[in-house]
């Protein structure tokens, strides 16, 4: 382990993830730095702690946007890897931290680190997205993130009895909304067929669909098949 390793590091496998070679960690960090937004998001750090003071996740988790900004700025490859395996998924992505007096964007850095974690199929990414993949299916296939029919009492028992009321009366209550586009139950609003396949084309062309393969091969297969079929039906060539 190089000299940059410090007392800040926990044991490599403290969170139950396998350790990897230093070279593998370096490659990962290079991917983070290669993102075109990286230089817009990181300028330096006064260690003032404003980002931590305003951070909701810092109040409830062992999480610190300052620690992440500093590790990345110091190019502490070991610590950055550990943060990618343990910390980054705690961030709320509220961007309260952009109040940074050095104009850093710790939330943005974390988003880039998360993308790298997804692209490399890291264990933390797979764990964070357990139970979440149905949402990825929903947004990528319907073009809307949450649909009325996702309001099921067994999925949201903590949201009160109204969830069951919605679920029991869903089709009728949706027809009792005046906007013409909102009578749907499996999507938030009625997205036109052509619009949807245009979205599919975006997922293919930008590599976003490929990213799913790294964290859930089964989901990737289902989405790819669905999208290719619809593109073919609409006569759109990739």
């Amino acid at each position, binding site marked *: 382990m190089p000299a940059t390793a410090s007392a800040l590091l926990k044991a490599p496998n403290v969170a139950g993830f396998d350790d990897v070679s230093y070279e593998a960690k370096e490659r990962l960090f290079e991917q983070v730095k290669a993102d075109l937004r990286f230089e817009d998001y990181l300028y330096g750090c006064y260690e003032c702690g404003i980002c931590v003071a305003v951070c909701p996740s810092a109040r409830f988790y062992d999480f610190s946007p300052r620690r992440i900004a500093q590790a990345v700025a110091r190019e502490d490859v070991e610590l950055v890897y550990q943060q990618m395996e343990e910390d980054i998924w705690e961030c709320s*992505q*509220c961007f309260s931290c952009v109040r940074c007096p050095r104009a850093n964007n710790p939330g943005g850095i974390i988003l880039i680190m998360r993308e790298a974690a997804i692209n490399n199929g890291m264990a933390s990414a797979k764990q*964070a*997205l357990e*139970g*979440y993949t149905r949402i990825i299916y929903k947004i990528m296939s319907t073009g809307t993130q*949450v649909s009325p029919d996702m309001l099921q009492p067994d999925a949201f028992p903590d949201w009160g009895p109204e969830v069951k009321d919605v679920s029991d009366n869903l089709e009728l209550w949706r027809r*009792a909304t005046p906007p013409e586009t909102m009578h749907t139950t499996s999507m938030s609003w009625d997205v036109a067929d052509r619009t949807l396949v245009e979205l599919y084309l975006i997922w293919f062309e930008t*590599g976003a669909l490929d990213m799913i393969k790294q964290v859930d091969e089964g989901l990737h297969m289902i989405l790819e098949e669905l999208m290719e079929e619809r593109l073919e039906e609409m006569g759109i060539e990739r």
Partner: protein
Amino acid sequence: MTIPVAALLKKKEKFERDPELLPDDFRDEVFRLEEEGEWIVDRVPEPFVEAPTKYGRSKKVPIANLWHHKSCGQCGHIPGYSTSIFWVMRKLGMDYNDPRDQTSCTAWNYYASATSNAAAQAAVAMRNFAAAKETGYFPLIHCGTSYGHYKEVREELILHKELRGQVRDVLAKLGKPMVMPEEIVHYSEWFWAMRNEIAAKQVVNVDGIVATVHPACHYYKLVEGDAIYDPDVYGGQRTAIVTGLAEALGAEVRSYSTWFDCCGFGFRHILVQRDFTRSFATMRKIEVMKEEANPDVVLTHDTGCVTTLDKSQFAAQAHGRNVGVPVMSEAQFAALAMGAHPYRVCQLHWHSADYRPLLEKMGIDWEAAWTEFQEDLKRLERGEIEFLSWEDCDA
């Protein structure tokens, strides 16, 4: 120990902006890129209201002919939110377009799971902007996160030619041009701009109603220079959004010490890690509001904030926490003040925290309204009508 908000506000009653320190106007770059043939700028149509922003730039907020970029969470889980926006616009006689040629901005998923990338996100935004331009209507963004993310996308596209090239190639395959709106406008900015016109059509007195406001992080923290700051609201030191409208309607808006805190939504957390969301929403927001301001209603202006602050209270109530206050968007509150039906328009039966005491305090007979709505449902069930219409809303 709570923060002495009143003392601090008194100390800094007015913040004067120094025109010398006005940052560069991003629109200079937007128009320069148009001149260079990189994209077409979708200009804000007249009539528009000029609104003051955080650093002093004047922002054009269009009033009519708007293309409603809907919100996944509003349409899906808080349908009275979107319905109220449309209803108020109709009441003020504004023509609008409610498109099917619109996808989600997909940013909720992006911030939650990172299963996307800068090019995909920018392509989704630019596809929607191009779709709006085709209709001749100007985009009005319903969701705070869409609004914040689209501003991020605009910044990224301005800064990175390589990204513009990638997105242009994708859009070319869709047969669409690159279109960048002159302003990215949130629906709550329209409500702020139209607050006096809305108040002029008010039929329900809200003078005795105490409100607390939760401003959405992605509205005023993410690319903060676009957010509206009015010298007459909070001395221009906090965004005037929501508060400006509530005060124009006559409600009393009370402050509280965790005003700047996020709601606890967390994107992924609200769906699959809600222990965090519930804890933050109740302990850092609702309980603090109750203790320090004792509101009749919490008003906010974003999808995730309404969901989080409303839905997180049920479990906390079971633990005997000091919660129990209705949460809604300022659009729903304004609609109620203008006489909107609480169920046909505001669709409050989709909300969790008890809103009935608020309606009673506003003098709205919710029991009679619920009976009317039940009759509507029976007509739907009997097949007399297929859908509830706008005309039915005001019957």
